[in-house]
């Protein structure tokens, strides 16, 4: 694995390997000294163009538990506000020779682009409405801890599917792990053609009781430039997961942050069915496993990248972009 750009790049075996590795890493957090020297001398750059609490802090904690050095770069308060492009920012920061860049942007496909501009391993921590692969991995991890396995489980993903990168990554990951996925929500928030991913589509919650797992999505008001809904109250009346709709044996998940009273009622957030805090805990160990997978070892990976003098990967020359090669060499 050179990069983690999309959950689509991982087959079931690879997902299982990462999740299994994460389970073994959980023990590190119980030690007196909560870190191991596995990635000593490696540098992880967190490059965040969007607000994030849990993803950024859990990547930072994961890197630190493995003894990597962490540099956080938030776009607000930086040269980005002066108009620096993504490419120039990445090339500038590459001069510090990070071994991995954890990237969150509002632009779909940005992670893949960046992977072509520099030699670091790229971890997609959310690119617009496209993907959020580590969220999918930690959700698979959380469900396996809770249910033992997810083969054959029925998982309903409810709410604002249209603006959700979590939905896209999770539909793929859950199905790859053998689950049956149904998406449900108002027609304006279900993208047309989503069935192509292999999931079923419902526009009401009438059959919600057939689900083993209810995965509620956050109503992403910041991504809505036009009106998709008459009102949030109307949405809540039809699609909110509340004590009346959630069964006692169902598992409730949410990627956070929760809009209490919108997609979830307060009572179900605090119910025993909810594994929302377990998802946050899983975030650290799963991201440890991802960073370990990408950065431990010499980097003698299939594409023929060889370790540089400081263990850093050599830039992969791109003939179309001689100026980049010169920048990075």
């Amino acid at each position, binding site marked *: 694995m050179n990069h983690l750009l999309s959950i689509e790049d991982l087959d079931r075996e690879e997902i299982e390997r990462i999740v299994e590795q994460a*389970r073994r890493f959980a023990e590190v957090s119980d*030690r007196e*000294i909560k870190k*191991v020297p596995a990635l000593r001398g490696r540098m992880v750059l967190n490059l965040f163009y969007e607000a994030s609490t849990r993803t950024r802090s859990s990547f930072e904690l994961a890197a630190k538990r493995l003894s990597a050095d962490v540099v956080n770069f938030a776009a607000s308060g930086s040269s980005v506000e002066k108009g620096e492009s993504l490419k120039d920012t990445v090339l500038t920061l590459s001069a510090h020779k990070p071994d991995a860049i954890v990237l969150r942007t509002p632009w779909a496909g940005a992670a893949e682009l960046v992977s072509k501009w520099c030699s670091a391993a790229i971890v997609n921590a959310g690119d617009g409405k496209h993907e959020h692969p580590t969220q999918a991995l930690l959700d698979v991890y959380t469900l396996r801890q809770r249910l033992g396995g997810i083969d054959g489980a029925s998982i309903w993903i409810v709410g604002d599917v249209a603006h959700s990168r979590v939905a896209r990554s999770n539909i793929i990951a859950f199905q790859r792990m053998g689950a049956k996925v149904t998406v449900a929500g108002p027609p304006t928030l279900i993208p047309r053609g989503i069935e192509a991913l292999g999931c079923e589509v419902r526009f009401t919650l009438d059959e919600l009781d057939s689900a083993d797992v209810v995965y509620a999505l956050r109503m992403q008001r910041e991504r809505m430039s036009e009106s998709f809904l008459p009102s949030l109250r109307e949405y809540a009346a039809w699609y909110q997961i509340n004590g009346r709709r959630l069964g006692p044996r169902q598992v409730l998940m949410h990627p956070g942050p929760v809009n209490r009273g919108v997609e979830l009622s307060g009572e179900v957030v605090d119910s025993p069915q909810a594994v929302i805090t377990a998802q946050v805990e899983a975030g650290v160990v799963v991201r440890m496993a991802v960073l370990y*997978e990408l*950065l431990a*070892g*010499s980097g003698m990976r299939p594409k023929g990248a060889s370790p540089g003098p400081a*263990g850093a990967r050599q830039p992969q020359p791109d003939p179309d972009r001689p100026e980049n090669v010169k920048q990075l060499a």
Partner: protein
Amino acid sequence: MDSNEKVVLQAEDVRRALVRVAHEIVERNPRPPAPVLIGIHRRGAYLARRLQAQLEELLDAEVPLGDLDIGFYRDDLQRRPDAPIVHASHIDFDVAGRTVVIVDDVMFTGRTARAAIEALFDYGRPARVQLAVLADRGHRELPIRPDYVGKNLPTSRAEHVHVRVSELDGVDEVAIEAGWVGVESMATA
């Protein structure tokens, strides 16, 4: 059985070697509290479990047992082509102030022992750390020596030493497999 392989310790020899090591541990640590045992994944962990039974009988006291995977602490982590699989460690007692006996199957370069000592200190500050191995095959690359040795096995670097335990391999034995004969002289076991 592979014709390149010579069994140097049979099940009975392994048992006797462990009994002797257990007695030596008791001799060196006669006063309570009892030492604690930490086996190194994977075969060291099984050997430690057997030593635990012996020690508890000899000392008539509880001997805490843990196991340790040193994968994160390997000094060749950045040089290996791929990240090694790391297993969970289990040390659910406090090592601070205790005498810790690290148990491994084979002592070779000493790098595993170094990594184990480093890992152990992340769990607390032991009063004393000792090292017990079933077989010492020599060729040390670090200034580390075991405190308890089941059997000294003079080997050449080209040879491989296989420790087998019944829990994993169906049989207790130690065997030496010939490497490239002629590259280095064959040592006698």
